[in-house]
């Protein structure tokens, strides 16, 4: 039976968790060997993407992409982190910042497959739809 990328990633994450660095090296070596035997090395990209998601989830980490119209202050960042921790129950928030003038103002948050769009552009669009009704 074919092993899916998700299954690979899941098993790797399980075997590697709470292990010391040298132990990890051995496990990784073995993992690479198994993949070679199964001729699945070409799917490494897929597996790594899945792995990083699973790892983050196990560690209570949440990768969030943050888009603002301008650079934002540390204070706002803190507030956002607190908000997301409350909302999702994550232990730690990993923010990636981006600036995009097209959203005019406000902010857009992306994590997992969710989007919170609090941009000025979206508000204006909603207002337009509301008036057109």
């Amino acid at each position, binding site marked *: 039976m074919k092993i899916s990328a*998700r299954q690979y990633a899941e098993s790797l994450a399980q075997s590697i968790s709470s292990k010391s660095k040298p132990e990890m090296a051995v496990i990784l070596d073995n993992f690479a060997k198994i993949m070679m035997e199964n001729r699945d090395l070409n799917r490494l990209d897929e597996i790594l993407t899945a792995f990083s998601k699973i790892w983050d989830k196990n560690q209570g980490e949440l990768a969030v992409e943050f888009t603002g119209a301008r650079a934002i202050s540390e204070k706002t960042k803190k507030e956002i982190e607190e908000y997301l921790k409350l909302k999702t129950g994550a232990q730690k928030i990993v923010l990636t910042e981006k600036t995009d003038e097209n959203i005019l103002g406000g902010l857009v948050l*992306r994590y*997992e*497959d*969710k*989007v*919170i*769009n*609090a941009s000025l552009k*979206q*508000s204006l669009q*909603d*207002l337009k739809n*509301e*008036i057109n009704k």
Partner: protein
Amino acid sequence: MSNTKDFIIEQLKSRISGYQAEAKEQTVGRVLKISDGIALISGLSDAMMSEILIFKSNGQEIVGVALNLEENLVGAIILGEFAVIKEGDEVVCTKRILEVPVGPNLVGRVVDPLGAPLDGKGKIEAAKFYPVEKIAPGVITRAKVKDPVQTGIKAIDAMIPIGRGQRELIIGDRQIGKTAIAIDTIINQKGQNMKCIYVAIGQKESKIANIVAKLEEAGAMSYTTIVLAGASNSASLLYIAPYAGCAMAEYFLDQGEDVLIIYDDLSKHAVAYREISLLLRRPPGREAYPGDVFYLHSRLLERSCKLNADFGGGSITALPIIETQAGDVSAYIPTNVISITDGQIYLEPDLFYQGQRPSVNAGLSVSRVGSTAQIKAMKKVAGKMRLEAAQYRELAAFAQFGSDLDTDTKNKLERGKRLYEIFKQDQYLPVHVAKQVLIYYALINGYIDNVPVEKTREFEQGLMKYADLNNQALNLIEEKKELTEEVEVKIKKLIEDYKATLDYLTK
């Protein structure tokens, strides 16, 4: 003037102050693969079955519907222009099951399966939105089918009566008048308290333009909606068209009204569904149709019903159409739909080319609701007509071999010839039920026996014109709906008076 201005400003102010900006959490996904109107999407972890998805591509918003929910993927069909969607485009969940606008404003319009106008007559204000897929009414809510749908087609109203709430299949090869029967039926619903919905699935748009023109000419568009998924539309639109049409019918059903819905045709619908299923990689079965192709049609046709008085008493009568290949009724889709419906009208190519139009085959056509869906007068004159018509054809084939026939058989043959002459009817000219009773009465009581066969149609047309001029008998049939002695006397007198004016009768 300034009043109007103030009003506008006030309105605008109230709208804007009423608007509250709020940021909602939305579930999004990305297009992984897009081909042939089918998209595979990653993410969308809380997508629902047949939920509306919005594809955001190039600043445009394109609607799609989730059809396959898998572990890491969502398979969706795209309703609309799919050429602009690219890999990696964002897809947003809407948390709404696929729905269409319904309401009285759709009457008289030509719309696409999503309810958008196609006739250039402007925007349609929908009364409500109804889900496209809905579970059919249950046993408790239903009533017996007993009120007639007058098709205005003599052969059908006499032999294969259709009731309100019935599902009667029209089946036959291409180009032998299946749509003609449906259109004549719509035309004949004028003043019968019936809303009509014609769902065109994969039809040529020129044909639909013709139909619309004909219906307008006959004044039938005032109670008709046309749902058009043309031959150039994608399979996804063809697939949802009949369900959308049925949802529009259900609105009137819920208002306690009677609706006639025509699905033209379900073979193309099955083909469209096969295309979608194969592209979604569902396993193919017989004739490459997916395993649930029976359910595809049964869940649609089961939504036709007659509700009892407690539930409004409305009805949906369905006339699905199936096109056969070279008269083969035992192919997969025709047998499926025959077994779902409450009877079928089988149109035969041989009859059609002999000039017998509509080419209804009396032997193979049947209505399982039967004479409960006829007015009493019609029941009386047309009681055994189907049997007689079928027997006549057997007899006629047999009689070709020998010339020595006893008088009884000869009489039967002569009667049969005239019966088939009466069954002939031109397109777009439905006949009122009272007139049908009149002509059948004349036939079964031997008034036409001395009319030469080739003059039968002339006799019939003359009789109808004469009856229009002296309309007491017709009015009486219409009013009583029953052949009482009083009515019979009137009819007899009318026919005898008319025959006295003719010069071509044989002795």
